[in-house]
């Protein structure tokens, strides 16, 4: 038991510092992905001239492996666009870009799942197309896709382990550093893996609870 104490418990400050970085990166990436995904989706569905561009971006973000995208954003973008200028930024940006592609498709499915009658009911009481979108289609879509959005957060957390490769000091990097210092990987890596699994489990349990709640309360099936 002493190994656990020496290698994990006594290092808890370092590990928690890493965990906080992980959470920070994931939250920024998540927010970016929701906004970016919504924009991509709306452009794809409603802005005819930019549609091909939106589709190309969505497909590229979705079909490229996150690790490849991460390296690309971290090492190629600075030369290409002069930005991002830190690996931290590159980390959340790459995670956010990929998820924005997935969320764009999630939003689209949600919008398409709103029955035409709900829109017509809005028109029949004299609402304008913008009001119908803003007050009926969008909120209904957000409700139906909320569980999928939460689910996307678990994908971000899982992928975030890779930002350690570009030296962002997240939980994974701190754990690997400790392994390098002590040359005793068993306890540190097991504890770290357990922490990640627990974290992701809790988030996806929250997503499931949300989906159940929505089904009971609003009669909505998750999209």
């Amino acid at each position: 038991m002493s190994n656990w104490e020496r290698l994990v418990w006594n290092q808890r400050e370092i590990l928690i510092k890493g965990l906080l970085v992980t959470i920070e990166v994931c939250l920024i990436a998540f927010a970016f992905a929701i906004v970016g995904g919504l924009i991509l989706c709306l452009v794809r569905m409603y802005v005819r001239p930019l549609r091909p561009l939106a589709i190309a971006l969505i497909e590229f973000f979705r079909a490229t492996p996150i690790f490849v995208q991460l390296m690309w954003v971290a090492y190629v973008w600075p030369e290409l666009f002069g930005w991002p200028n830190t690996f931290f930024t590159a980390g959340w940006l790459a995670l956010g870009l990929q998820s924005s592609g997935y969320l764009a498709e999630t939003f689209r499915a949600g919008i398409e799942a709103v029955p035409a009658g709900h829109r017509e009911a809005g028109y029949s009481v004299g609402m304008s197309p913008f009001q119908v979108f803003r007050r009926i289609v969008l909120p209904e879509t957000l409700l139906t896709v909320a569980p999928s959005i939460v689910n996307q957060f678990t994908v971000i957390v899982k992928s975030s382990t890779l930002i350690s490769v570009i030296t962002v000091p997240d939980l994974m990097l701190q754990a690997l550093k400790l392994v390098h210092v002590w040359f005793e990987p068993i306890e540190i890596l097991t504890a770290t893996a357990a922490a990640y699994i627990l974290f992701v489990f809790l988030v996806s349990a929250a997503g499931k609870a949300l989906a159940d709640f929505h089904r009971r309360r609003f009669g909505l099936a998750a999209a």
Partner: protein
Amino acid sequence: MSDALLEAINPAMFWEYRLVLMRGLAFNAYVFFSSASVALAVGLMAALLRVNRAWPFRWIGTLHVELFRNAPDYIMIVWVHFVLPLLLGKLLGQRIEWPPFVSAVVALGFVYSGYFAETFRAGIQSIPLGHLDAGRACGMSERQILWRIVLPQVVRRMLPEATNQFVSLFKATTIVSLIAVPDLMYQVSMVIQTEMRPLPLYTSAALTYFAVIYVVAGTLRLLSERWRNKIYA
């Protein structure tokens, strides 16, 4: 900026190293097929445990699914590569080692078995019980019912979902480079170390992966849709 852009899309360097890079891509495929086999086999077993009547089996199946579905694949690869041999070594009292390829296949195979188990289970549970009764009424054996009635429907039902998971698994094979499995990303980083030019190489790698995944995934989806549409018109 425009110079940089030109360099980024200039495939000359990628072309120069095409042989070693394509060998890397082939290695991605090799890892993919190996871990997909593991994932399908283990996933089917876990799914059968989850639909079992006895609760201890169901419980083990659920544990398996929750454990592997929620695990980041990178940490699982690292764990299998650095921790598992030590644990087994302690258990057997001897030094155990295996090549990174084995770690990659075992880790990815088990992580994705969690996803496949859920897909199998949903497929199995979607078969109406009446179909089994109909088979029994015709005098078919339980084994015949499983192979002739249940599984063909399960496979068709789970195809779209499974296609997505195969795509995810293929994308995940890119991280095996991190434990020095010589896939495309590994070869790219090796070339970058000698040439010091990440710009064209990473861009070409990204485009290559994108093209391969986009084309293969699209074809798979098209084929599976056509096949499914024959019975779910």
